[in-house]
């Protein structure tokens, strides 16, 4: 039967597919074709194999799976005839990629075909090898390819040269084998061979330093001459493109000269003349000419300095930049970015044009120009450039605003000459595109604001104005709310007026209005609303006369479904209503945030981890993130830990502030929970007040940090730093445990345990810790004895001891524990499964905890205890988070 003329032909299949009106129809046709091809594959049908493969390729292009055709390619390649091989290799390149195992099977066929007598078959094999060769194949077949570089027909030589590029890219070790053969190819006249040989030369220089040296010595002269001939060659119709003789060849010659001249003065000297010739003689009215000029400029920029040429190159770029063709302008911007490091002054001259390009209608050009402007900005031009960019921000496309704001903010942060200018510019950006601004940016703004004490009044008034006009930009709202909370008194009393300001009259109720609007706006998210509540609490102290109104606003959030808001409003309501005496101290102005540590931390991107770390309970809640942001703005305040404070009741304050407090913990374990805070509660309170982003110093360092604290006091020049006064006032009004209504409100603590143990001593390696009461419920209590082995700080050995104070015996006693992923827990068998009553005996069990994030996260554990009491199943569950922090 004739394999070329029956069955459904390829043409018919394509027609059938094109005739399909719906995707479903098309799938049906393809499915039918695939079925018949599969049948043919399994029948090992020789006659239609190549047609089937052609069909498969078409189906493949439509995006259907065609893996079952892969072996067919190999069979066709192994066939003797040219037509079969031709389609077989095409299928191989289309259906397979270098990562498929099947490819290895073709190595042998390739080897045979590379040695074939028919030059076209050799060509097919070279093409396939060049396009999809893997490293193994490259290694196996490199000798054949190397030999073919000297093949009699130039069309095979050029294919072999490109194939060699693939080989040396896959296996750079093989580079040296190709250096000599390519040197002789460089002397050829055939453009195809010359073109590919130069390309191979360039790639050899990239992978091998020796090759580069070799070519630099031996071939620079020759290549310069070839370029000279190419530039001066008479009209040759075969290679002519719009009046230029073989631009492809010229471009490649310029590129290899760039590589050879880079970093070598002699070679650079040698090519100066010809580069000047190319730069001046090439016509720039067509794309081909511009492509050559573009390449030439890049070469001039890269080779060793020659002043005259550089001027020529910059002039060409200037011409490009004012070209009407967008492509040319695009490449000019691209090249100016490279030129800026060489001749910044020359590029600055084009600043106005470049700035125009930022406003271009073409997104690609805009993006390039913006990158370039970013590089162009320096101290002397930052003000006008920023003004231009911000003006443009007003009218720019929505999808460009993100990029643009990021760059403006970065420029302003990097180069702002003075704080007031920085604040002004940031406010403008926030007002125009606050929704595109990243969190770090407005965090940084707040840090700067706190640091410029003379501008507090000015800033808060500017923000007050800004929020009136741009209340829809979330970032404006947040910064404004924060500042009004902090500096509300300055706003109302017009304190710290600058000369440039217009006076405004803001009453207390105006200021509260702003926050009320913000908290009620349905677009405000959790963070903003939480910030609003915080600001209200602060204002309640700044504006005592409006206290009742603030209380009412705060109360409205008591019913919020968002736990964070609900909790805050309940707690703040208590503070406003019942604790006037400590309120003013609690809501003192934030201490000045440290700019250096803030920017340092941004670099280290440790914001989130340390943010979680400072939650003393270790109860990680998702809502904590905004809270931490809110309180501390991610600032790494050094731990100003007080001397160990034994007022364990103080920990209610930290619950009060809501950091990590677990409202739902009204379970029997709450008695135990209280003990958790035992000896470190003093630190915790303070930490929470300061909202430090870092974990507290180990207990043993506390004495030294006292002096830190003192020095801080002096620095701040405040008579009584807020954290301390908070603590002081706190120690007096601590209500008797369980009696205060506020405590009931919070979670009803059980009786307080005994005074905390003395601060632990630190040894070099092996450390001991005071035993902790890990869990207590009714009559059952669980003590942990903690210890570390010398040399392995990550591993904590725990000896658990269970005691039973009830009069009954607990049988079938089983203790289970679970830890988060960063911990590993190993439980050893318990000493017994019967726990005698009346505290007359105990069960001990050893645990070993490995903390993979030692130093970053503290140990936490969930436990479950099951036992039988008078043959009744009992179950106790709880969470242990009162481990010492540095386990």
């Amino acid at each position, binding site marked *: 039967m004739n394999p070329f003329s029956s069955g459904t032909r390829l043409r018919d299949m394509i027609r059938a597919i094109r005739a399909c009106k719906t995707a479903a129809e098309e799938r049906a046709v393809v499915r039918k074709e695939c079925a018949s091809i599969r049948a043919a594959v399994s029948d090992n049908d020789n006659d239609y194999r190549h047609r089937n493969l052609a069909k498969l390729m078409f189906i493949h*292009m439509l995006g259907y799976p065609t893996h079952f055709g892969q072996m067919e390619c190999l069979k066709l390649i192994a066939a003797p005839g040219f037509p079969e091989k031709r389609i077989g290799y*095409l299928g191989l390149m*289309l259906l397979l990629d270098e990562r498929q195992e099947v490819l290895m099977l073709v190595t042998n066929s390739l080897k045979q075909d590379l040695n074939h007598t028919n030059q076209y078959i050799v060509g097919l094999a070279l*093409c396939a090898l060049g396009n999809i060769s893997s490293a193994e194949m490259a290694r196996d077949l490199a000798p054949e390819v190397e030999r073919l570089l000297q093949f009699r027909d130039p069309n095979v030589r*050029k294919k072999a040269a490109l194939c060699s590029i693939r080989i040396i890219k896959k296996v750079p070790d093989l580079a040296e084998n190709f250096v000599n053969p390519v040197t002789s190819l460089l002397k050829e006249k055939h453009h195809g061979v010359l073109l590919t040989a130069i390309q191979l030369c360039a790639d050899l220089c990239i992978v091998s330093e020796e090759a580069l040296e070799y070519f630099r010595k031996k071939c620079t002269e020759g290549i310069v001459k070839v370029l000279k001939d190419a530039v001066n060659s008479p009209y040759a119709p*075969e290679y002519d493109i719009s009046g230029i003789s073989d631009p492809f060849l010229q471009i490649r010659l310029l590129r290899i000269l760039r590589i050879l001249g880079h970093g070598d003065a002699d070679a650079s000297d040698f090519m100066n003349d010809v580069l000047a010739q190319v730069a001046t003689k090439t016509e720039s009215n067509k794309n081909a000419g511009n492509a050559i000029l573009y390449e030439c400029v890049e070469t001039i920029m890269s080779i060793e300095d020659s002043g005259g040429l550089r001027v020529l190159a910059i002039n060409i770029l200037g011409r490009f930049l004012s070209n009407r063709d*967008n*492509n040319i302008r695009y490449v000019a911007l691209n090249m100016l970015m490279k030129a800026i490091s060489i001749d910044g002054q020359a590029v600055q001259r084009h600043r106005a044009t470049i700035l125009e390009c930022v406003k271009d*209608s*073409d997104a690609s050009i805009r993006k390039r120009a913006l990158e370039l402007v970013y590089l162009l900005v320096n101290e002397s031009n930052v003000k006008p450039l920023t003004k231009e960019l911000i003006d443009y921000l007003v009218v720019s496309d929505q999808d460009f605003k993100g990029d643009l704001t990021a760059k403006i903010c970065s420029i302003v942060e990097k180069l702002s000459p003075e704080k007031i200018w920085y604040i002004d510019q940031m406010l403008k950006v926030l007002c125009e595109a606050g929704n595109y601004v990243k969190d770090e940016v407005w965090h940084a703004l707040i840090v700067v604001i706190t640091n410029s004490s003379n501008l507090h009044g000015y800033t808060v008034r500017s923000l007050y104005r800004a929020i009136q006009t741009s209340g829809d930009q979330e970032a404006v709202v947040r910064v404004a709310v924060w500042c009004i909370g902090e500096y509300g008194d300055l706003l109302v009393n017009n304190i710290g007026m600058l000369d440039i300001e217009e006076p405004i009259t803001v009453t207390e109720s105006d200021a509260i209005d702003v926050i009320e609007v913000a908290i009620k706006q349905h677009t405000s998210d959790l963070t903003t609303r939480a910030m609003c509540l915080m600001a209200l609490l602060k204002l309640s102290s700044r504006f005592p006369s409006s206290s009742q109104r603030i209380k009412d606003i705060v109360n409205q959030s008591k019913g919020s479904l968002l736990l964070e808001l609900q909790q805050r409003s309940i707690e703040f309501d208590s503070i406003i209503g019942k604790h006037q005496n400590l309120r003013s101290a609690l809501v003192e102005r934030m201490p000045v945030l440290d700019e250096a540590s803030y920017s340092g931390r941004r670099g280290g991107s440790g914001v989130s981890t340390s943010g979680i770390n400072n939650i003393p309970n270790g109860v990680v809640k998702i809502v904590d993130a905004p809270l931490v942001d809110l309180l501390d703005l991610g600032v790494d305040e050094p731990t100003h830990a007080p001397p160990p404070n034994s007022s364990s009741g103080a920990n209610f304050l930290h619950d009060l502030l809501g950091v990590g407090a677990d409202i739902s913990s009204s379970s029997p374990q709450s008695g135990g929970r209280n003990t958790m805070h035992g000896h470190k509660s003093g630190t915790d309170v303070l930490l929470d007040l300061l909202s430090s982003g870092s974990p507290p110093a180990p207990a043993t360092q506390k004495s030294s940090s006292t002096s830190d604290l003192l020095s801080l006091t002096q620095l701040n020049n405040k008579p009584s730093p807020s954290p301390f006064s908070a603590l002081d006032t706190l120690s007096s009004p601590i209500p008797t445990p369980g009696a205060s209504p506020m405590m009931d409100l919070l979670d009803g603590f059980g009786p307080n345990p005994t005074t905390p143990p003395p601060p632990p001593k630190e040894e070099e390696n092996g450390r001991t810790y005071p035993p902790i009461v890990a869990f207590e419920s009714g009559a059952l209590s669980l003590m942990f004895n903690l210890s570390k082995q010398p040399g392995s700080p990550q591993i904590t050995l725990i000896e658990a001891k269970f005691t039973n104070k009830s009069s009954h015996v607990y049988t079938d006693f089983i203790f289970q524990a679970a830890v988060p992923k960063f911990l590993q827990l190993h439980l050893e068998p318990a000493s017994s499964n019967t726990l005698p009553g009346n505290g007359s005996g105990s069960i001990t069990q050893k645990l070993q905890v490995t903390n993979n994030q030692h130093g970053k996260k503290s140990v936490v554990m969930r436990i479950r205890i099951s036992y039988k009491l008078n043959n009744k199943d009992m179950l106790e569950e709880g969470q242990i988070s009162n481990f010492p922090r540095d386990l």
Partner: protein
Amino acid sequence: MIHFVLLISRQGKVRLTKWYSPYTQKERSKVIRELSGMILTRGPKLCNFVEWRGFKVVYKRYASLYFCMCINQEDNELEVLEIIHHYVEILDRYFGSVCELDLIFNFHKAYYILDEVLIAGELQESSKKTVARLVAAQDSLVEAAKEEANSISNIIAQATK
């Protein structure tokens, strides 16, 4: 280096794909989807380059077809435009004023021609005449094989009559 060549129709249909850098089949369809979304929506007067995943894609529209080539950041975009045009002119000569239908029904021919223009993502021949001659020579080899097969089958048919 050219990482891949794509021919996409105005409607987003793929007419030719050639990959010189390794991409899995999954990545390939993702790349095609992404790029056709970016390129087909660009206005007519804009520049012919789009930046994409740290690469540049140079494209040019000829009638209903977009020819796209993906190159490195530091490559010469203008030259790639010239390479695209070079390929189109060769196609045009081969098919005699080429149109999209030619490339649909003779997609394999378009691939054969491309294989004579590019290997390993690099240009192999700057002379259109040479490419045309090489493709024609290989086509005639196929024709010869066809005729031979025909005559053999005729002989067999006659012999078994």
